[in-house]
């Protein structure tokens, strides 16, 4: 009966393991602590969207009485609902940050109804009056930082040809593209921007192909709006082009080629939210802002950025930070010749018309569909 022996031994081991495990302290949050949960759709070190949030989460870890739990690569399916519930039920989380755009509807809304005592904060700016009051959504006007990148790019380009690797032709992305070329045209009115859509948020192979094809066409400054800009930044630098980053600072990936970049500033926003939460104040359900509110920032300029570029970029940045500068100021026509913002009309940061953007402005080479 050899087998029975093995089985008994294994049985004993298993029992021991379970018993030992059971006696381990269940690292559950103490009552005095506030546990905050972060959920990412990709990996935390993607040099992009998710890393920006993880940096914000990291900023909380030094706050006294705050415990941070994190989970990465959670798909936008029922899995994220279960992750939220698991953080609530098993970790005792009281404040949750499901950070991906697609987590909001139906997943986060469903959980907000089910757990009315828990606070949910989503990145995307989607909250409306009919949504639960314990749910909130925030977002940053990062097109302001992209505009600054555009100014620097316009100064630094030699060929006058800029390139943009974009995921999907949705309003948020189109706004960044348009903001970039409008900035570049301040420095170089003849600048053009070739845009390539890859079709999805994380497509490293297509992103690399797009970058190469842009360089082949004579483009010498490239930027992007995809989840992880690492591929674009590294490939562009390898091919001798300059880059403007996105989401987080990618200068360590290509110090010789990194001009500047548009970054999120969640390191400032998240501690602000958590302080409101622990002080018992209500976090506004709908929270948006730009450079002025410190929700976005601009990467430090690379060493190669010239004096004229720095001066104009700093000048516009100061005006944006003061809140008296409008990027989308008429007359602006799209790249098919149609007037989209008439002369004399200023579409400021919070103008709802900009949320519906479906055009590429004059100077952009590419199509939205």
């Amino acid at each position, binding site marked *: 009966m050899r087998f029975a022996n093995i089985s008994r031994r294994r049985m004993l081991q298993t029992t021991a393991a379970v018993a030992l*495990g059971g006696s381990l302290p269940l690292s559950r949050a103490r009552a005095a602590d506030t546990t905050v949960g972060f959920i990412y759709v990709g990996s935390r070190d993607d040099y992009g969207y998710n890393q920006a949030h993880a940096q914000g989460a990291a900023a909380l870890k030094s706050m006294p009485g705050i415990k941070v739990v994190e989970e990465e690569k959670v798909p936008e399916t029922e899995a994220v609902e279960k992750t939220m519930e698991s953080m609530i039920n098993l970790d005792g989380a009281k404040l949750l940050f499901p950070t991906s755009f697609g987590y909001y509807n139906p997943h986060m809304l469903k959980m907000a109804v089910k757990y009315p005592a828990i606070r949910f904060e989503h990145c995307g700016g989607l909250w409306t009056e009919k949504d639960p009051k314990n749910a909130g959504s925030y977002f940053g006007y990062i097109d302001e930082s992209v505009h600054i990148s555009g100014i620097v790019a316009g100064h630094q380009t030699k060929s006058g040809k800029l390139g943009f690797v974009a995921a999907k032709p949705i309003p948020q992305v189109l706004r960044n593209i348009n903001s970039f070329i409008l900035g570049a045209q301040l420095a170089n009115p003849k600048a053009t921007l070739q845009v390539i859509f890859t079709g999805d948020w994380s497509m490293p192979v297509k992103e690399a192909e797009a970058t190469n094809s842009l360089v082949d066409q004579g483009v010498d400054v490239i930027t992007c709006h995809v989840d992880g800009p690492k591929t674009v930044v590294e490939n562009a630098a390898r091919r001798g082009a300059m880059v403007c980053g996105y989401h987080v600072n990618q200068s360590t990936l290509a110090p010789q080629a990194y001009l500047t970049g548009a970054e999120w500033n969640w390191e400032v926003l998240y501690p602000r939210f958590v302080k409101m939460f622990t002080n018992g104040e209500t976090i506004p359900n709908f929270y948006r802002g730009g450079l002025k509110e410190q929700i976005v920032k601009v990467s430090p300029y690379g060493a190669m950025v010239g004096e004229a570029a720095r001066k104009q970029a700093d000048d516009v940045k100061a005006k944006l930070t003061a809140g008296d500068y409008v990027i989308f100021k008429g007359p602006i026509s799209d790249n098919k010749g149609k007037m989209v913002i008439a002369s004399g009309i200023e579409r400021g940061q919070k103008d709802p018309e900009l949320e519906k953007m479906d055009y590429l402005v004059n100077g952009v080479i590419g199509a939205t569909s």
Partner: protein
Amino acid sequence: MKADVGAPVAPAAARPSLREAIGLKIGGAAEYVVIPALALAASLGLFGLFVALFGKNPLDLYFYMYQGAFGTWFSWQNTLTRAAPLILTALCTALPAQLGMVIIGGEGALLIGALTATSAALAMGAAPPLVVQIVMAGAGMIGGGVWIMLSGGLRHYRGVNETISSLLLVYIALAVLNYLVEGPMRDPTSLNKPSTRDIGAANMIGTIPGTDVHWGFVFGIVAAVLSYILIYHTVFGFAARVAGGNIRTAKLVGLGVGKLILITCFLAGAAAGLAGTMEVAAVQGRVNANLAAGYGFSGILVAFLARQNPLAVIPIAILLGGIGASGGLLQRRLGLPDASVLVLQGTIFLVVLASDSLYGRLGFLRRRAP
């Protein structure tokens, strides 16, 4: 892949005594439980070593895995919720396997099923919810079924390798989905997340009473049991297994191989299409890129681990659901990266496949001599 389930035939060289015969029979059946269980234990042991290399305590690992997957009622529901789509997508690989076909395109059938089901629901307008739900399920199953039938047809009539064609059809399905969602079927209010219109809260399929687990789990079990009966207890299933064993023999004895292939592929795709329907009708409420979450691909793993047996698909899907459910806790408590769950899945897959060589070789299971 051979359909090797049920007790193997005892060697008939010497007539065994009744007692011996029963022993052989039980021993043979026990193999199908003991060997996978040993393989599972071995892979957990290997994974423990792997985790120990990262300086984590393997005992913590096992405890958190148990806690996250089965330790509380919440964990159980988490596990079963994750298992629901896997049962159905696993059938998409397990059914054609009876015919010796390796279909790995369940993801495509899931996406197409979700699209056809949603189109049907949106076209129905204000019909009673039960009618809408039944029509959705029918449309989803037909959509998914036809999609995999394409692979079956290409194989039978044109000799195209069904593994390759079904995989390539996944990418076509994804492109079709993206095109429809971003174009003709797009809800104009879905600005930054292109989606179809919502099927409406009234048409959503609820959860099993007293749980968070949606009805897709029950449908999965029903589909798995029906598949088992079809394959092992009907003439059709017998014919399919004969054709899977030797297609020339099947043709020689006059079996309609083409019909067998097409019907089996249709049923396989219908299962995945139903999974897609459930993702829409019980979870998402609309079609968008979220649906391509890889359930179809995880289903392949489930089917192979279950050795293509439709009944075994159920516990294996629950096991993989449990691993998925515990993955979050491993990240949060042990600070392991998300990929560690994939390492575990890969380890299990390899060890189970390697354990195939143990069948019929474990003496203690064979000769339970008095």
